[in-house]
């Protein structure tokens, strides 16, 4: 396949008026939710899932993707001006960005963050262009045994690289897998765990679960800390950084981009891990590590480049293998399934316009974000002052109507309340919803590949360890699990996330 002709196809798809407008809507919405306190990309994408039914697959995926990487830009704005990361991957940016803001250099921090993100986004798009076809052709060689092991590896990696207790995250994955079993069995047609409810015949609705866990449960968590909002720095200052400042940022941005591009591909990696890793790397490399935490511009440039690169390249496993690396990607997989597309290596060959259009739209979207963010930063800064108390009734209204419009069925609303409360209870007990959603999305695939692999091997479970690629993947998964279980590494890991 020729990269150039693929890119031309992508450009032709992404540059239609319809797709351009959905790209713009996505990036604007993404920036907005990145800026708004208590509303992140996963919540927003969950809320919008029901409304993507009416759109075609390409515009809806372009819009949802725009929300994800747009939020990386918006999140840094609140991190810098308010010391409140709009979403987790900007937490590191707040460390030095807010200090810069207090010194009256907020403009510089914002500009460096936006420029670094744009550069990283551009590079990461090309990484996708180069890597995606390789991964796709690799994946097409995989048999069911390899696919089964790959899914296991993906799930375990996403747990190992996430923060918090590994056992809890694993339990959440398996809880997701178990709940994905509800509904009629595809092979035998037998009804499983439906208890005679017709509404459950096609399984628990993915959208309802997403909105419950990421919409309703999040509202409840945010109500815990109500009234504790920070105060925004009003003075943004000059935007354009000086030459020496910019030169100091070149290294961190380049390293952050490389780091983010690699870590983004790993399951469970994505934006969050990339920004943390880049910050500790820059601190280690710096000649003046003491400046970090007191307004070092490198501490803004590196992580901002890294989280944007990571956000982009985390699309690679989703697009080529159908394996989501984080909750947002799980929702993208869900959105594809809603549109009747089977996620996996076939997307690139059967839906080339969608595949390449989405990739090219990401670069266009990054360009839009640069234009949106730098001149309009004052406008975004004003949005930050919208109190959460005004927002959550709107979030809940959107959730309820969206869920109701799925089937015009009130059963889904009861399910929404139930999953919201369950999600909140689990959150309070230190169980994050992301691994749960990954398990839920991958459950049917896991069962299907397992059944097929066992059928092909005449019922011998050894097939998973005797086929070399499958065995290798499982060993990798085991190693990852052992690594996080070992106390020495576990301590280092919690230190990385504590910083």
């Amino acid at each position: 396949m020729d990269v150039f002709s693929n890119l031309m196809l992508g450009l032709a798809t992404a540059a239609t008026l319809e797709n351009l407008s959905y790209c713009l809507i996505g990036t604007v919405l993404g920036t907005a939710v990145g800026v708004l306190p208590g509303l992140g990309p996963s919540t927003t994408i969950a809320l919008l899932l029901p409304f993507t039914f009416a759109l075609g697959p390409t515009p809806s995926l372009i819009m949802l993707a725009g929300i994800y990487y747009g939020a990386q830009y918006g999140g840094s704005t609140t991190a810098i001006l308010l010391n409140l990361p709009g979403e987790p991957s900007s937490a590191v940016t707040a460390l030095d960005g807010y200090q810069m803001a207090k010194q009256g250099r907020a403009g510089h921090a914002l500009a460096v963050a936006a420029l670094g993100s744009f550069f990283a986004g551009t590079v990461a798009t090309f990484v996708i262009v180069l890597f995606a076809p390789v991964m796709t052709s690799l994946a097409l060689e995989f048999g069911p045994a390899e696919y089964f092991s790959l899914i296991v590896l993906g799930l375990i990696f996403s747990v190992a690289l996430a923060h918090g207790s590994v056992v809890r995250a694993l339990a959440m994955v398996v809880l997701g897998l178990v709940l994905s079993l509800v509904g009629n069995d595809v092979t035998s047609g037998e009804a499983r765990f439906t208890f005679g409810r017709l509404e459950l015949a096609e399984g628990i609705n993915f959208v309802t679960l997403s909105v419950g866990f990421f919409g309703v449960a999040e509202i409840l968590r945010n109500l815990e800390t109500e009234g504790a909002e920070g105060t925004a720095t009003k003075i943004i200052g000059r935007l354009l950084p000086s030459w020496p400042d910019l030169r100091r940022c070149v290294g961190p941005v380049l390293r952050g981009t490389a780091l983010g591009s690699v870590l983004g591909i790993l399951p469970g990696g994505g934006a969050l891990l990339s920004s943390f890793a880049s910050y500790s790397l820059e601190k280690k490399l710096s000649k003046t590590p003491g400046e970090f935490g007191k307004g070092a511009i490198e501490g803004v440039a590196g992580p901002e480049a890294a989280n944007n690169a990571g956000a982009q390249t985390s699309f690679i496993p989703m697009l080529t293998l159908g394996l989501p690396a984080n909750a947002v990607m799980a929702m993208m997989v869900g959105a594809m399934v809603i549109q009747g597309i089977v996620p996996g290596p076939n997307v690139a060959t059967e839906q080339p316009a969608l595949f390449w259009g989405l990739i090219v739209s990401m670069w266009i979207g990054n360009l839009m974000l640069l234009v949106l963010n730098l001149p309009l930063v004052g406008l975004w800064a004003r949005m930050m002052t919208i109190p959460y108390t005004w927002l959550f009734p709107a979030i809940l209204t959107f959730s309820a109507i969206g869920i109701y419009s799925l089937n015009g069925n009130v059963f889904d609303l009861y399910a929404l309340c139930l999953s919201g409360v369950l999600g909140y209870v689990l959150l309070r007990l230190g169980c994050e919803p992301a691994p749960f959603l990954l398990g839920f999305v991958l459950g049917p695939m896991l069962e299907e590949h397992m059944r097929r692999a066992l059928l092909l091997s005449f019922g011998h479970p050894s097939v998973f360890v005797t086929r070399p690629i499958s065995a290798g993947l499982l060993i990798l998964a085991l190693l990852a699990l052992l690594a996080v279980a070992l106390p020495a590494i576990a301590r280092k890991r919690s230190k990385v996330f504590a910083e």
Partner: protein
Amino acid sequence: MRTTGRQLKAGGIFVAIGAFFLATALLTLDIGSTLRMGAGFMPVLLSCLLIALGIGVVLERAGEDEVEARPIPWRGLAFITLAPLLFALTVKGLGLAPALLGLIATSSLASRMMSLTQVLIVTAVLLAISLLVFSYVLGLPYPLFALSAG
């Protein structure tokens, strides 16, 4: 080794859900063999795994993050779950507009920070926006007002 209450509760939830699915699967589903996996094969496998992990959660060494215990926002919990239920009960019988009114007003009451005036303003503004967006822009096919019972 100490086990915190949170660990016990979290582990308990996993074990309970696992046990429920395991029992249901064993009672209602055909397990089959590895050659021909029945509908109950994965459920039994996964629910056993879930029970094991639930026990693991309880036995795990307590992490350092086991500190904060922010008060449960009971008021929020009550109104946030009540609002969609109210919407579910009224949307068919009364129509979209009254159901939305109930939904928005109930959910605004969830916050401790809002005065009555603010609740009224938020409700009015949000109701207008939602009706505009959902009924006119997105064109959802639900009548604004209905008078049928049920």
